[in-house]
Every structure is written in structure tokens, then in C-alpha cells.
């Protein structure tokens, strides 16, 4: 049998990495019934990766300091080549991701896909939804303009209205009694390190469970 160089290279890699097994195991799975509503999970994953990529590129210029945050974003928007594009995608992608994740949850709820044996997939999904909202909350402060400043003032004040623990929660969120450089820095840390790391781990678990159980069939009249 004749084989090209590329086929030989692929065969060599496949023998060692098991690429064919990976393909059949991960991607070539049976689908119950083609439906665009079933693609929202993949869409969420795509948006997570897009937000991750554009976010990483934004940190090349963004500075999380009250003295420089606003100016550095003005610089990204007005002076850096395609800065408007990178931040534009990150800005609109954020809103879009919250929407897509939420509609994904609605679809799973409506089709009853959270039932046995997929309860854990649902619970992890709840965690993913909350963390996506957390990303939106922490990212909103980073431009450090009036809207960001007062939105965070109000939101942390709401968190502070919890009985007994309120004052502690407010101080823990703000890094002190007032919004300050500490607030901006800890929101930044949460936004680029803690939440994304937790999100990535939970996405891994979510995907593992989807591959393990397969996608749920739609309920019929018997159900």
C-alpha cells in the first residue's frame, strides 16, 4: 500500500498517542437527534475559550491600578492596533456568554436532561453558571470608570446586607471598608486567575460526564 509522508507521520503519532481512539471516544459519539438547541453547550465552551484568549491579550496592556486602569484602557481603545477589536470581542463576548450559558441551562431544564444519571452534570453546570456571573461581576470593575466604580459600590453593598456576616463579606470583597486599589487588585486576581482556573476544572468535569453518559434523548409521550 502506498502512503504519503503525512500519512506515515500520522501513523507514527497515532501509534503512540492513540489519536484515532481519542477521536472516536471524544468526538465521534452518537447523537440522539440533530437539534440546534443541543449546540449551546459547545457554544458556551467556544465563548469561554474566546474570552480566555482575548483576556490574555488584554493583559498585555491593561494595568490593574487606580492610577492607570482607565488610561490603559483608553490606550488600548484608541492607540493600539486592533485594540478596539480585542477589547470589543471581550466586552460583547462577556454579555453573550452569560446569555448563552443561561439559555443552555433553560434547554437542559425544558428537555429534562438533568435527570438520572446526569444530576451531577447539572450541579456542576450550576457552579459554571455562578462562576460565569462571577466573571461578569469582577470584570465589570476593571475599566475603573464611573459606571464600574458605582456598580461595584452598589453590588458589594448589597452583599453587605446579609444578616450578621454582611460587614465581613463587604470587607472581604472590597479588601477593606471602601473601594480602593485593593478592591481593583483582588477583583483582577479573581477575574484572571481564580475564577478561570476553577471554571476550567469544572468544565473538564462537565465534559467528562457528558462523554461518559452521552447526550440525553428528548422525552417522548411515555415520559
Amino acid at each position, binding site marked *: 500500500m502506498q502512503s504519503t509522508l503525512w500519512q506515515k507521520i500520522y501513523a507514527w503519532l497515532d501509534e503512540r498517542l492513540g489519536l484515532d481512539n481519542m477521536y472516536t471516544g471524544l468526538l465521534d459519539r452518537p447523537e440522539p437527534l440533530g437539534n440546534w438547541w443541543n449546540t449551546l453547550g459547545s457554544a458556551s465552551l467556544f465563548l469561554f475559550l474566546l474570552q480566555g484568549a482575548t483576556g490574555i*491579550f488584554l493583559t*498585555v496592556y491593561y494595568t490593574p491600578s487606580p492610577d492607570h486602569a482607565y488610561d490603559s484602557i483608553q490606550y488600548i481603545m484608541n492607540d493600539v492596533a486592533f485594540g478596539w477589536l480585542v477589547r470589543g470581542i471581550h466586552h460583547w463576548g462577556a454579555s453573550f456568554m452569560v446569555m448563552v450559558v443561561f439559555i443552555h441551562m433553560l434547554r437542559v431544564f425544558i428537555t429534562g436532561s438533568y435527570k438520572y444519571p446526569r444530576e451531577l452534570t447539572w450541579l456542576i453546570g450550576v457552579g459554571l453558571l455562578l462562576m460565569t456571573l462571577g466573571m461578569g461581576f469582577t470584570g465589570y470593575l476593571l475599566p475603573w470608570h464611573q459606571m464600574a466604580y458605582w456598580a461595584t459600590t452598589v453590588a458589594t453593598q448589597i452583599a453587605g446586607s446579609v444578616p450578621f456576616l454582611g460587614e465581613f463579606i463587604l470587607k472581604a470583597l472590597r479588601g477593606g471598608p471602601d473601594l480602593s486599589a485593593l478592591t481593583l487588585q483582588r477583583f483582577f486576581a479573581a477575574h484572571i486567575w481564580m475564577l478561570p482556573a476553577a471554571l476550567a476544572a469544572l468544565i473538564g468535569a462537565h465534559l467528562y460526564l457528558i462523554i461518559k453518559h452521552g447526550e440525553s434523548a428528548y422525552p417522548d409521550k411515555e415520559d
Partner: protein
Amino acid sequence: MSSKELNRRDFIKLTSAVTGGIMAAGLGIPIVGYLIDPALREDKAGKPVVVGNINDMTEIGKPYPFSFTITKVNGWERTASSYGGFIIRKSDDPKDLAVLSSRCTHLSCRVNWHEESKAFQCPCHDAKFDADGKVLDGPPPEPLGRFEFEVAEDGAITIIPVEVKEG
């Protein structure tokens, strides 16, 4: 598609590859421009600076150190950078001067004058230059840079803060 039918599976594969490719290129190419943007900006030359007065430099052959600061806008911030050098009188003629930069031509550390060895020495890799900026020892590939200068009637020395190479 008369001889070869394009089946559904291949059509999906093809359209996915094409749209995926367009999206990757649509983001990938601007990202390169975004990252290298600061490297494509032109470095603006600083304005001439007064660095000393010839009447304060009485000894011939002695390097008199000077320093100056240039403020540039880098990104969203003004950055002040310090530079320095040495003025050496070669003769009684107040215009017969050597104005050397203190930036070592090896890897840009700052050289200092050592009176005992009569040489500019670099603290980083032990390079030595003579009073005229020529390499005596060590790794530098070329002599110390010079500044173009003007001496006014009252003795004030003005330099253009751009290093020029020897010769």
C-alpha cells in the same frame, strides 16, 4: 459536482473548516498587529539639552561627568529616563572637546572613570575604554558613542541627545 458527489458529511467538514479558518485568521492576524504595535512606533529624538559649562572644566584631559533626563510618552504614561556621559577637553581651545556617552557598547551598562587605571570601566563585564572612548579591554564591539555638541559664547555646552558612532 457531476462526477463526484459531495455528500452531507464532507460538506459539513468543508464548511466547518472554512468558517473556522476565517474566524481564526480574522482574530489571529489582528492579534499579531496588536502585540507588535509598540515595536512599530518611531522613536522620537529628544530636544537639545545643556549639559554643562566649559568654564567649569579647567583641566585638560580630565573627564567631567554629566547627566540628563529625557521624558517620553510611552503608552499612557510619561517616562523619564536618565542618560549620562563625559566631557573631555582635548586642548585649550574651548571647542576642542570629546563628548562621550557613558553607555557601554557591549550591553548598555553605564561606565565610570577610574583615575588609577586612567580608563572608563564597565561594572558589568569589566570592559575598559580609554579617555577617547576607544576599547582597551573586554567584550565591547566598538568605541563609546559620542554626542554632537555646540559651545555657546558664554561657554554653555549643548548636546543633541542622540548617540552617534565613532568616525
